[in-house]
């Protein structure tokens, strides 16, 4: 094999690398010590990723007839694409370029300059050995199906769906509940401007329902996702609603006539009732009700049918069954939202035991004019207006026992509650907070406003809410016991009502959903974005985007922003019409395959099939995801993995260790 002509390029990354690694020495060493391995050029430059740095490489490729390029800079996850493109532009196959990390894995994690430089040498040596065994590859090109799936019909999903559909591309919007609207539809007022949530949300919901480019699939759940970017196959289960939507007029007579009333744990947050046939709320989109078979008298006893009897349109269909729909889409946006922390788990706050302890979501319903009390702020008896109200921040947030993150919205939400209580009842209001976090446009101004309204702010985390009374004035009250950290004293503050600003948590099934769509969850359970700062709506999986609280707690403006951002990313993909896929695949060399079938059940994508006629195993390149498990398992070396071949890894290993003999690790 004729020796390759290799160029080695060492990036200073300003002082990010050069501060810890002796880049000049490194470069000189690469040029000298690795010359016998084919290194003909070794250069260092302040910022290799800059256009000047890239030009340097391009020039050498052309003038020095380089056949391989090794760039020692940051993580391949950051700039592999940049340098591959630079090489491609200079006429070299991009896969003959190898980016090795001496920033994330050397300069940023080590302090000793000599040791870091020695390690950087090993890393470059590994890269040089590896790149010798690289082969030119051509990316696979896949067409992008212009249709998009949006999962979740809250404000994030609504925004994303609207943006895409308005651009003329089709959207399937899948929602688990009978109506879209999400948590926002449950709120009364939104901070800091106090606009009415329904007034700004309902028009959007209506346009979703009537949009020619949107197929709205409510009361539906995604069951299975196959395929890859550009060509996903999604199986959706549309649950039986027992109401024929072609006939139903949405008159709601069935709801009035239904004799079975049950607590509504979802939309009314358990604070109100709905019927066994119901719409989540009067402005629901779509307008058709669903029958909750678990609570329906007819499904239980075989008698009743009140809804059917009173339905003039004849839309009730007790025989309806779940429908399985197959959708083909090119991209997917996950906007599955959040669950509210179960405040019963913080036993010391008494939720679930003490009647007049409410969660934030319950309180939203309490203040909502369309809620169970028509917007009257009253105690659990439904009648008494509280004279004093305590609002507790950080319930289930910033607490290692539950969620160690800040839920972002609770401070502002609690301020909103304080304002509403004050405005509507005139009660004494106490806010108990660890830190007041009002960082966003107009937020601190709102805090100032609430301060001016005479609300008490006590800095401290509430120790307990108790009905154990010590004094006559505590009798029949809820006593909030706290260290008022401003004075370093314990205080016991009797109130009539307590509101718990409960944490935002990942959906209880976020792990399963992530797994289903092939993305990852953080330790806390939020979907992980591709880059926390620079790519907050994409994921590690091509074609899957995330928006809203599914990615982390956030307020409405940020949620809408993300919905729109995800839509923009998808629209960009659709406009490309096709996209290139990394050619990282496994292949069987049939002449070497003995048909032992060790590999056959190792592939989770069933890309490996056995050709009975030839008695060899065959890999379907379209299904293969390139993990390399079969390559490692093939006992006869009949499976090779492009870009991660045995030769490449063994050579890199050799390169990494070669230096050992030359220079020991410096402590």
């Amino acid at each position, binding site marked *: 094999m004729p020796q390759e002509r290799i160029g080695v390029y060492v990036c200073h990354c300003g002082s990010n690398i050069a501060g810890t690694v002796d880049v000049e020495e490194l470069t000189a060493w690469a040029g000298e010590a690795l010359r016998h391995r084919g290194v003909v050029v070794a250069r260092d430059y302040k910022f290799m990723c800059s256009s000047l740095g890239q030009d340097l490489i391009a020039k050498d490729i052309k003038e020095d007839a380089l056949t391989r390029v090794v760039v020692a800079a940051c993580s391949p996850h950051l700039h592999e694409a940049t340098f591959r493109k630079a090489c491609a532009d200079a006429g070299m196959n991009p896969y003959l370029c190898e980016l090795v990390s001496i920033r994330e894995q050397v300069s940023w994690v080590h302090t000793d300059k000599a040791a870091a430089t020695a390690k950087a040498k090993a890393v470059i040596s590994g890269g040089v050995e590896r790149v010798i065994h690289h082969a030119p590859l051509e990316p696979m090109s896949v067409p992008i199906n212009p249709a998009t799936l949006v999962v979740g019909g809250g404000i994030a999903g609504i925004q994303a769906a609207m943006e895409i559909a308005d651009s003329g591309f089709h959207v399937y919007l899948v929602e688990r509940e009978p109506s879209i609207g999400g948590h926002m539809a449950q709120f009364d007022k939104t901070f800091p401007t106090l606009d009415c949530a329904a007034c700004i949300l309902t028009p959007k919901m209506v346009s979703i329902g009537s949009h020619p480019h949107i197929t709205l699939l409510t009361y539906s759940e995604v069951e299975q996702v196959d395929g890859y970017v550009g060509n996903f196959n999604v199986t959706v289960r549309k649950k039986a609603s027992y109401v024929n939507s072609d006939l139903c007029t949405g008159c709601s007579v069935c709801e009035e006539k239904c004799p079975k009333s049950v607590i509504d744990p979802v939309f009314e947050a358990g604070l109100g009732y709905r019927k066994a046939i119901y719409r989540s709320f009067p402005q629901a989109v779509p307008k058709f009700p669903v029958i909750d078979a678990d609570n329906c008298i007819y499904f239980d006893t075989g008698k009743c049918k009140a809804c059917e009897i009173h339905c003039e349109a004849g839309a009730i269909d007790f025989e309806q069954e779940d429908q399985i729909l197959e959708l083909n889409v090119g991209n997917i946006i996950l906007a599955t939202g959040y669950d509210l922390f179960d405040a019963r788990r913080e036993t010391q706050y008494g939720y679930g035991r003490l009647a007049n302890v409410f969660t934030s979501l319950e309180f939203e319903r309490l203040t909502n004019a369309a809620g169970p009390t028509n917007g009257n702020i009253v105690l659990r008896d439904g009648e008494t207006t509280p004279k004093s109200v305590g609002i507790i921040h950080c319930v289930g947030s*910033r607490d290692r026992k539950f969620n160690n993150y800040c839920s972002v919205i609770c401070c502002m939400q609690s301020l909103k509650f304080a304002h509403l209580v004050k405005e509507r009842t005139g009660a004494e209001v106490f806010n108990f907070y660890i830190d007041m976090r009002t960082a966003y446009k107009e937020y601190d101004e709102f805090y100032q406003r609430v301060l001016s309204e005479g609300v008490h702010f006590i800095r*401290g985390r509430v120790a307990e809410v108790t009905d154990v009374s010590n004094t006559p004035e505590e009798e029949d009250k809820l006593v909030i016991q706290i260290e008022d950290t401003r004075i370093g004293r314990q205080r016991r503050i009797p109130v009539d009502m307590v509101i718990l600003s409960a944490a935002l948590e990942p959906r209880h099934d976020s792990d399963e959903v992530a797994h289903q769509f092939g993305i990852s969850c953080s330790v806390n359970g939020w979907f992980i974005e591709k880059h926390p700062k620079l790519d907050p709506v994409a994921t590690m999986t091509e074609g899957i985007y995330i928006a809203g609280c599914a990615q982390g707690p956030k307020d409405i403006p940020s949620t809408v922003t993300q919905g729109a951002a995800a839509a923009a990313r998808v629209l960009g993909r659709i406009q490309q019409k096709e996209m290139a896929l990394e050619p990282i695949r496994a292949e069987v060399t049939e002449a070497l395959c003995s048909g032992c079938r060790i590999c056959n059940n190792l592939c989770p994508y069933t890309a490996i099939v056995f050709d009975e006629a030839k008695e060899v195993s065959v890999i379907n390149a379209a299904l293969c995801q390139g993990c390399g498990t079969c390559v490692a398992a093939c006992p006869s070396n009949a499976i090779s993995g492009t870009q991660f071949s045995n030769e490449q890894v063994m050579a890199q290993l050799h390169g990494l260790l070669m230096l050992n003999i030359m220079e020991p690790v410096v402590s």
Partner: protein
Amino acid sequence: MDTSVKYVRGPTTHDRTFLEEVIAQTPVDDPRLAYCVQCGTCGGSCPSGADMDYSPRELFAMIDANMREEVLSSNTPWYCVSCYYCMVRCPQDVHITDVMYTLKRMAVREGFSHESNAKDAPDFSETFIDFVENYGRSFELGLATLYHLRHHPLNAVRMATGMGFDLFRKGRMNLLPTRIENIDQLKAILAEAKAIGGNGDANL
């Protein structure tokens, strides 16, 4: 201490040696004291918090500020009733009760334990362990009598005639302590333990 200084002299260095010492002398590798966010859950939860001169939260801030003398002469650790409310509620999982034990041991060792208004508490503990070390079992009557005779002679009389007498009458008090059989083994273990611990505590 210079009592004329009315304000707490702000820590002039960022030295956290006291904090590190407290952490090192508390069992389990990290009692998480450095993670305190001053939320006050501990102070609010404390059943005897109203009578403490500093709340546990304040004490932790003082430890961080290297206010060794003030911390060790505080009554706060001695008023800890070991109810563990603070520990189960602490959002940062600080091992508060264990830290209180550590502060008590440091106070005893460094001679601060009689500075606070809980000055009898260490003696009660010491009387208690005297019996344990010599008999292997604790001994209520002896403990009560000895402790009260030493510190509250009047109480001793009240004990003997009042509730103590009632308990005795009901057969709920022994006249003599029980001694375990292998007291020598226990003594050997405790002697070795003390030797390992050095001057009271070993760094953990």
